[in-house]
């Protein structure tokens, strides 16, 4: 029987793609085991969605944080672009300082209103700017992320001020209508597209077959006289006391960290919360509530510094929502390098000590002057 089985040469010719994947191309003759590197596919620019002079507008309003919009705000822009036809432009009004490009998400025009980085609470002023832009552009739809960092608040203020039809906490949208969950998720309610949409996270796929024009305009915002609100500032919060889910900066240790006091000192310097991988927790070096990953906590920090963590799938699952991952590891081929935005290949102890040396005498906690 066995001679009837068709044998396959395990060392058939293969190609290595630009992404480093091994591909066997059938019918290609070549030396067995030889690898052919395919040149990087040239990234052809996506076609512009907008054709000619726009006859209408969709407006997206969002707050920038540290020069960038959140993924949630990107989704709102993509949703507005997908709702728009070829003669409708997508204009994005951004409050705060913006340094990223929004054209890949479908923004045709970006209006940057410099009103501080969202840290200063002055809703009357932002509302005045937003209402003025709505009056000027007369958008068909206003799309905003329904987020806790100010967009949901501003969106509701704007809806109340304009008195337009509005759908909040939208979980599903299409050109024909929107759906929102009612009664705590027991019911789904549908309606036609209202003038204003506040989207929950995860409604829209960010992969777009087109791009926006991405033209940028900066506007000056006059101060709002007689504001009824006064921002008294934010009291400093000790990040080490915060839950990992709430932390913005996490220093996390894995099996490669033997010297825990140095790690704690590093976390204190960066005003970071402390996380750990399962191995480090099982060893007893860290507490169970500090474990990040599938059996621990799911975090959504801006920075996650993974020190001596190889990055098992269960661990990477817990840091999926993190924006910047910095890995320090002796093994450049560890799975964490596939996820990390910056990978340092070196002994964790040496780099930690050098980081402490370079930041000696400094503390990055807000409200602490160096």
């Amino acid at each position, binding site marked *: 029987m066995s001679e009837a089985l068709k044998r396959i040469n395990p060392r058939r010719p293969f190609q290595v793609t630009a992404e480093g994947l091994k591909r066997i191309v059938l019918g290609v003759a070549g030396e067995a085991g030889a690898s052919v590197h395919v040149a990087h596919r040239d990234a052809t620019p996506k076609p512009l969605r907008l054709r000619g002079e726009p006859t209408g507008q969709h407006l997206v309003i969002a707050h920038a944080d540290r020069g960038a919009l959140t993924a949630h705000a990107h989704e709102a822009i993509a949703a507005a672009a997908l709702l728009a036809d070829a003669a409708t432009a997508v204009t994005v009004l951004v409050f705060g300082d913006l340094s990223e490009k929004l054209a890949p998400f479908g923004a045709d025009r970006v209006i940057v209103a410099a009103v501080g980085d969202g840290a200063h*609470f002055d809703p009357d002023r932002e509302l005045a700017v937003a209402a003025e832009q709505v009056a000027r552009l007369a958008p068909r739809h206003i799309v905003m992320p329904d987020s806790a960092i100010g967009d949901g608040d501003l969106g509701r*203020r704007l809806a109340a001020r304009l008195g337009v039809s509005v759908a909040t906490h939208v979980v599903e949208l299409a050109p024909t209508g929107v759906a929102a969950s009612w009664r705590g998720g*027991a*019911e789904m309610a549908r309606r036609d597209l209202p003038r204003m949409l506040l989207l929950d996270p995860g409604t829209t796929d960010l992969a777009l077959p*087109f791009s926006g024009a991405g033209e940028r305009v900066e506007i000056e915002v006059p101060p709002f006289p007689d504001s009824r609100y006064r*921002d008294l500032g934010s009291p400093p919060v000790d990040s080490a006391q915060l839950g990992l889910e709430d932390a913005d900066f996490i220093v996390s240790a894995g099996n490669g960290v033997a010297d825990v006091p140095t790690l704690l000192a590093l976390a204190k310097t960066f005003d970071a919360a402390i996380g750990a991988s399962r191995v480090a927790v099982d060893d007893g070096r860290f507490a169970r509530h500090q474990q990040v990953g599938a059996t621990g906590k799911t975090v959504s920090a801006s920075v996650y510094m993974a020190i001596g963590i190889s990055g098992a799938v269960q661990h990477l699952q817990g840091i999926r929502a993190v924006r910047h991952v910095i890995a320090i590891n002796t093994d450049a081929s560890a799975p964490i390098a596939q996820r990390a935005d910056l*990978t340092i290949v070196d*002994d964790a102890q040496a780099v930690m000590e050098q*980081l402490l*040396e370079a930041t000696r005498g400094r503390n990055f906690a807000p409200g602490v002057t160096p």
Partner: protein
Amino acid sequence: MTATARRIAVLAALGRNPVSGKARPNRDDLLALELARQLGGDLTLIHAGNPDEAALGDYFAYGASSLDLVPLADGGDVASALVTRLAGYDLILAGSRAEGGEGSGLVPYLVAETLGLPIVADVIAITLGDEATEVTQALAKGQRRRVRVTLPAVIAVYPKALVTPRYAYARRLAGRVTTYVAPAMEPVASPWHREAAKKRPVKFRAAETKSGHARMLSAIVAEARGGAVIAAGTPADKAQAILAYLRLHKLIDW
């Protein structure tokens, strides 16, 4: 506390038990009621809806002493009905979302806009002053912000505010309801159609217009992953590379 007692209104909606589906006081509004009770002052609960709902009595058990009821048919405009009873209050508190119906979180904003009052949302603590009140807002990532806002004002309470409403049956028996005349309002047909919730909402994505060849390519070629890898140099250089990355993306103040 000032000599004259402050007049405080708490907007109360009817909630719904997520398991049994029975009517109950709205969780978020109970937090607003508890915060208002801690402030002292002259407290009134205001509800717009069905006057025969027995679950409203539970609000008394949680500490309200009087309830102003504006009769409103199902699907009526809650904000306009509430506004008819809201004149002369120094502070109007509300929960962030209702759990019994639409739960849009818009009512406090509509009330504030109609009355021309300032509104602060996501509030976890309130200190009353003479002409202004100081509130603490809960922001994302565990941050807090203190805001001073002129009185009268509307305040929406953070859904995870650290107050615990307590139930006492004796208070439930002592509460009294004042039912007002239903405001004359044209019934408006709701644009919403309700249905049982599906398993998962469908994501909004671009229509697939790629050729078969392009689709095959995108299926076999994984997205480019991984960022910069720094293997050469001394540990000191590498530490500087990390700090440069953090500075470049404005993640630390340097």
